């Protein structure tokens, strides 16, 4: 015999700690089962796209830092790459390598923070401490080269702002060795843990069809067997020069997404190691016209570029009308697209799994609301 209760609306957020920002989920529940879920977003909306229209091209770069503040380097890159496509500029070799190294370091920092906070959300405290300890190593390297720990503002249209300081490449090589050992520890600490497996296996399963229909990307898509990584399928920058694999899992549950991200950490370390070997010892770091940041004026045209951020496919659509300010900047933010799946995948789940599912999507609210 089952007791039918009245449907109740449960508000999760906007200040729920597991959302790592301000995100509201309106859950319609029948007993403990969710019958309908409505994501409500916009609490962190700053109008970044509109702001871009009032800025000269370079001035918008610090604002891209503040979209996905966990992975700001790729945001920097993709905006600069979009404008470079309009300008049709050749980027100096050394700048490309510095971009790759910093982007991959940032991807590691982003995944590490996800690893720590996801486990914190589902009830394990100590992994958070391990994750932040290792993230500190990465942030120190990024701080040395860019002068900030999270809002780097490091890339410039046509190259990068600063060359690597003396001995920085060697320091990165050292850090890669340290990180490789520490990340191997993550596996022993958490991956095999029975409680963790029971909490994440067969939770929040996404089918391949769902992923494709909702346009999801990044580790979420790869966790469901969709083999797509823009670094491989459509190599931007100089990613075609490196030897790395794209980890794909087929089960599509939270545990599969977890395993994809852990495997990506190792692949990123591989890329950094190869880039540190291949980087030319010296050379220009910015296109000869790029250093005059007030004078950048692309011809009237439009361009779309995309890249693989730690959360998924990030894209920038820039329209220029031949003046010093962009006519329109459209940002395709992976977290915004990925979070939309919640209304589909939460139906039929129980309340205690909401945090485990939401955390496994790895969304950053700065990027959802832009």
């Amino acid at each position, binding site marked *: 015999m089952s007791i039918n209760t009245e449907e109740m609306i449960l508000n999760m957020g906007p200040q729920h700690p597991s959302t790592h920002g301000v995100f509201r989920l309106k859950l319609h529940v029948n007993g403990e089962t969710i019958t309908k879920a409505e994501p409500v977003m916009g609490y962190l909306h700053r109008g970044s796209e509109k702001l871009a229209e009032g800025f000269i091209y370079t001035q918008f770069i610090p604002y891209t830092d503040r979209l996905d503040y966990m992975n700001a380097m790729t945001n920097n890159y993709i905006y600069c790459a979009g404008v470079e496509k309009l300008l049709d500029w050749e980027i100096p070799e050394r700048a490309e390598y510095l971009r790759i190294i910093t982007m991959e370091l940032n991807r590691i920092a982003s995944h590490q923070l996800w690893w720590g906070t996801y486990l914190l959300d589902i009830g394990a405290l100590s992994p958070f401490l391990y994750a932040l300890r290792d993230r500190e190593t990465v942030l120190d390297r990024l701080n040395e080269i860019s002068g900030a720990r999270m809002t780097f503002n490091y890339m410039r249209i046509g190259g990068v702002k600063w060359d690597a*300081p003396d001995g920085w490449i060697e320091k990165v090589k050292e850090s890669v060795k340290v990180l490789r050992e520490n990340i191997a520890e993550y596996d022993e600490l958490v991956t095999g843990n029975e409680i963790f497996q029971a909490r994440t296996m067969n939770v929040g399963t996404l089918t391949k069809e769902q992923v494709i229909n909702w346009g999801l990307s990044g580790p979420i898509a790869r966790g469901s067997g969709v083999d797509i990584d823009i670094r491989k399928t459509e190599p931007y920058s100089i990613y075609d020069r490196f030897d790395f694999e794209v980890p794909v899992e087929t089960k599509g549950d939270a545990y599969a997404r977890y395993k994809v991200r852990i495997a990506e950490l190792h692949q990123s370390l591989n890329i950094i190691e190869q880039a540190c070997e291949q980087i030319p010892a010296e050379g220009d770091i910015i296109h000869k016209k790029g250093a005059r940041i007030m004078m950048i004026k692309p011809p009237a045209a439009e361009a779309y570029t995309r890249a693989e951020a730690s959360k998924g496919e990030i894209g920038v659509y820039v329209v220029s009308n031949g003046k010093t300010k962009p006519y329109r900047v459209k940002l395709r933010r992976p977290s915004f697209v990925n979070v939309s799946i919640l209304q589909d995948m939460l139906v039929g789940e129980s309340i205690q799994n909401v945090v485990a599912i939401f955390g496994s999507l790895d969304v950053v609210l700065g990027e959802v609301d832009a």
Partner: protein
Amino acid sequence: MFRLLKGFGITLNYFRKRKVTIQYPEEKVAMPERFRGIHRFFPDKCIVCDLCVKVCPTDVITLTGKKSEENPKKKIIDTYNIDFQGCILCDFCTEVCPTDAIVMTARFENLSSYNRSTHFKDMEWLTNNHAYGYYEESEAGPEAGSRGEVK
């Protein structure tokens, strides 16, 4: 169950390893030379070119100049203010400055206060902002703020 205990083993191992915690208010992390902290201003170097005002994305810098008494063709700085309520420490002002008159120090703290008006910092405050960071050592020499080579 075995894997669970293995995890505990790792934690136990850390009892004999080095501590990584920094006791923040007492101990401070040394920020690298490029760190984009709170500004410092050198009035003697400023040529009142207005570039920092133009490049600032948040429009927080305001300045005025006056004619120099010794050389009427030259302009010198009269007032220079940064409103730290809106400053995002993006470093564009130091990037465009042709004479390195505005630089960023390694100072990252002690800017918060209880009212808004105290975030408005004038030229005197910005000039005397040398209590923190690497500018302290190089203060004696003529090369105070040798940031040019980093660029």
